């Protein structure tokens, strides 16, 4: 199997997943696939169904309809076997708080029947907790607990890591640490990661693919490249010679100019930025600002879900 084939290997797939609580459809007919080696950003508002899907993938909750296939297995027994190759953190890491980080990893090793003598130290080293491994977890900060949670999820050398809101409540330094750790795991161990987060700018720096969920339905699945293409780019210009500049741009075929305050205006379209700048400067128009701005993932997401916000996503 060559590298390209490995990259495209589907290791987890969800088909028609449905979950009902009473008459409420919390997840409706959700389908998506995870390919080996990719990092998936799982995006959705609070209550969209992200955690419910993750809980079903972990086996904590049963599906009302649909099918989950992990490493080609979809029977109860096969799924249980498949889950042994997964590391899962739902909301907060499951830790024994009155034990040390070292003991927590030892317990996880026992759980998976791993006998390695050096693994505990290696994992503590990997997540940067080697020097405080003997300290009780109850004295750990939120960021340290998250990192320990990831270390524990790595005990069984998982091929898939599923993380539900791993940066929730972390300070900026903690967020960067987790991001770098996840990128390192993906790069060095080729671990496929599914990560849900509200911090979309953070996901944008991490994910190679996106799954967008709204009200229990998968709205869109797209790659980073597709997202970049879909997030419309604007050329933003500021000049005191606004009308002259507009006339020059009109000659270039630019028609959709939107005026702003302070002599700003912007337009979108498939224009060569360098060419636009060169033409304006040839006409000796003094530009006080000239930039290419891309719509953020946040804006794209809000637009996709129909402008709905609950004050939590954006």
């Amino acid at each position, binding site marked *: 199997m060559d590298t390209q084939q490995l990259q495209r290997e589907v290791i987890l797939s969800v088909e028609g997943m449905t979950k009902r609580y009473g008459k409420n459809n919390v997840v409706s007919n959700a389908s998506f696939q995870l390919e080996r080696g990719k990092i998936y950003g799982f995006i959705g508002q609070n209550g969209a169904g992200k955690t419910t899907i993750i*809980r079903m993938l972990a086996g904590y909750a*049963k599906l009302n309809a649909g099918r989950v296939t992990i490493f080609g297995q979809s029977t109860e027994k096969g799924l249980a076997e498949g*889950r042994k190759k997964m590391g899962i953190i*739902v909301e907060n890491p499951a830790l*024994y708080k*009155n034990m040390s980080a070292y*003991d927590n990893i030892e317990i996880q090793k026992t759980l998976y029947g791993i006998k390695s003598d050096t693994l505990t130290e290696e994992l503590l080293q990997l997540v940067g907790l080697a020097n405080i491994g003997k300290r009780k977890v109850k004295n750990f900060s939120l960021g340290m607990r998250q990192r320990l949670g990831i270390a524990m999820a790595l005990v069984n050398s998982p091929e898939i890591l599923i993380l539900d809101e791993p940066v929730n409540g972390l300070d900026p330094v903690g967020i960067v640490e987790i991001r770098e750790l996840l990128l390192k795991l993906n790069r060095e161990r080729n671990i496929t990661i599914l990560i849900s987060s509200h911090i979309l700018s953070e996901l944008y720096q991490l994910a190679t693919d996106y799954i967008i969920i709204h009200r229990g339905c998968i709205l869109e699945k797209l790659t980073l490249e597709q997202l970049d293409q879909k997030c419309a780019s604007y050329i933003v210009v500021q000049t005191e010679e606004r009308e002259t500049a507009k006339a020059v741009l009109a000659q270039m075929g630019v028609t959709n100019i939107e005026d702003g305050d302070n002599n700003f205006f912007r337009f979108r379209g498939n224009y060569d930025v360098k060419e636009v700048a060169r033409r304006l400067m040839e006409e000796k128009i003094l530009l006080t600002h000239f930039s290419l701005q891309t719509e953020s993932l946040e804006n794209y997401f809000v637009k996709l879900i129909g402008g709905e916000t609950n004050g939590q996503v954006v």
Partner: protein
Amino acid sequence: MGKLFKIEMMKLRKSTAMLVLLIVAIALSLLNVGVYGLVNLVSDSLLSVFGKVDGYNMAVTMTSDTSDIMMMVVILMAVLIGGDFSARTLQTQVAAGYSRFKIIISRFITVAISYVILYTLYFSITVIGMTIIFGFGDGITSDMVSELVLKLFLSFIMAMTMLSMYMLFTFLLKSTGATIGVCLPLMLFGVSIIQMLSMVSEVVYDIISFTPFGQSMLLGDMFGLEEVEPIKFICVCIVWFSGFMSLSFLSFRKAELK
């Protein structure tokens, strides 16, 4: 299963609750011995109020009343299993591919071992202490020792049956506070209510005799096993134990874990 059990033992060794309960069990047994010893020093006539006091009689009494230890074990069970639910450590075992049946059984064995440890400690310190002060007893026959051993055995079977019921509540309620909130009042008032009900009529008494509560009342007779039919006792315990464990499994099998 072995791995789950090993983890439970690791948890038990590191558990603050277990440590506190061990200290409480030692303190309670020393208190028991101390009270009798003190009364013995103060007045022999006061001691006669308690009946015949020696190591053997204390051992017989302790097989009839296991409520102190049972209460401790229920608290420990609520702390360990309820804590596992709230910390999601139990869910980790589900995600690691272990069957929910194995998870329940490993928890029950741990609870049973905790009971044995606490009871043995409580029983042996008290009986040894009483034997040191008052002697083991005069005229102890091999029949009496056999009866004591049988009572200990039946008491253990009863304890396991009752623990399986409290286990059911723990797996239904999935929280330390709620489990303690339900189980302790049940322990405190359950037997008294059943005792009152059994006095209503012969029929009610007969019905109750087919429950662990009814059988535990018979076992509670402090100085003999005349009322206890060992075969019926064991059958009642096995049936109810199987029922409680099956219900625990059925409720947990379908339970949505958070």
